[in-house]
């Protein structure tokens, strides 16, 4: 059903009814934005990458062949743009400073709410190698199957599973170490 609805919207857009694209944006902007935000953290960057994702999807809509769901295809575009953005951010000290400041504000708010463990986990997740973090985020928050994750990140299913397993075990080890040090 979801596929049919998307297909008809996409066909409308391709036949020249641009307004139909708004339906696709409204349907998928939140999952794409939150996915990007978990990768990039800062709202400004996430908004920018989300917007670019839809603009690029529009430009390439004729190349979408319905071999995956539209959401998977969008996430694939988003992940490539987010990777580029991460590369840019890693080169910019100012951006990183801003990002850290944003994070601090957010973390202080959460700390006040007594959610230190969540803060720690979020930081631990951010500390994973990007290939592991991508897969963990897609699996945990977007609830994608490993087959779909492989499509999105451009790897095979086995690699996606290995990256997820390694990422989760790494988080678990860090978590256990932290708990022991607190005891």
């Amino acid at each position, binding site marked *: 059903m979801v596929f049919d609805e998307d297909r008809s919207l996409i066909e409308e857009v391709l036949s020249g009814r641009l307004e139909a694209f708004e339906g696709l*944006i409204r349907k998928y902007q939140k999952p794409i934005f939150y996915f990007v935000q978990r990768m990039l953290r800062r709202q400004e960057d996430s908004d920018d990458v989300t917007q670019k994702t839809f603009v690029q999807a529009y430009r390439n809509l004729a190349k979408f062949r319905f071999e995956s769901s539209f959401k998977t295809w969008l996430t694939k575009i988003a992940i490539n743009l987010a990777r580029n953005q991460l590369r840019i951010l890693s080169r910019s000290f100012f951006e990183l400073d801003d990002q850290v400041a944003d994070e601090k504000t957010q973390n202080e708010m959460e700390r006040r709410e007594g959610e230190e463990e969540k803060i720690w986990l979020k930081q631990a997740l951010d500390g994973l190698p990007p290939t592991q973090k991508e897969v963990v985020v897609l699996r945990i928050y977007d609830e994608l199957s490993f087959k779909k994750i492989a499509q999105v990140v451009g790897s095979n299913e086995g690699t996606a599973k290995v990256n997820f397993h390694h990422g989760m075990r790494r988080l678990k080890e860090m978590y256990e170490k932290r708990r022991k040090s607190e005891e």
Partner: protein
Amino acid sequence: MKCNEFQNLWTEALDEGLAPEKKREWETHRDSCPACREELESLDSLQHQLRGIPPANPPPPVFWNRQTESIMKKIEAAPGRRLSRLWEALFQPRGAFAAAALALLIFFGYRYFSPTPLSDPADENQWALQLGDEEEIEQGSWDLDLTEEQLDDYYAYLAQKYFPQVDLEDEFSEKVWIEDLDEQGLDQAIQFYEKNSGRRTL
């Protein structure tokens, strides 16, 4: 089943990807091995905790409307949109090739206006069909499966055919995707095309 295999099959089990017999073995091991069960429980608990992390700074409701409007504005103003109209206008018997020539104008720039003689197939359709798929040609995406060398040859051929007198060096000094042109750049490209082909586009 050994502990190592049990742990390696964890991701398979998550996706319900185990064959019935393997699944039974896996469950039997889980129920009989306290160490593996503990490992599994802690991984499950960790997943649960991760799911409980809310998105950072959830935006206010008005944010989504603003974002939608902003995307739609960008799309409406995008040269790609104007380009698709141009493409439709060009789609006459030989229109796709004329449009491809327009794309060439920007895509390969002046570098391909070399005086080197190129082969000149009698029929452009035949030339394109040798390189791409008929359906893709109609969709304007036939060039996606070509090698870079084949694309170079084809665009260079079109360059000579449609834009023999255009001096692009002043206008486009480097390779640019047509989708990346701004309004002014697209206008310039259209003017070049119309001037040199004698065709109207929009």
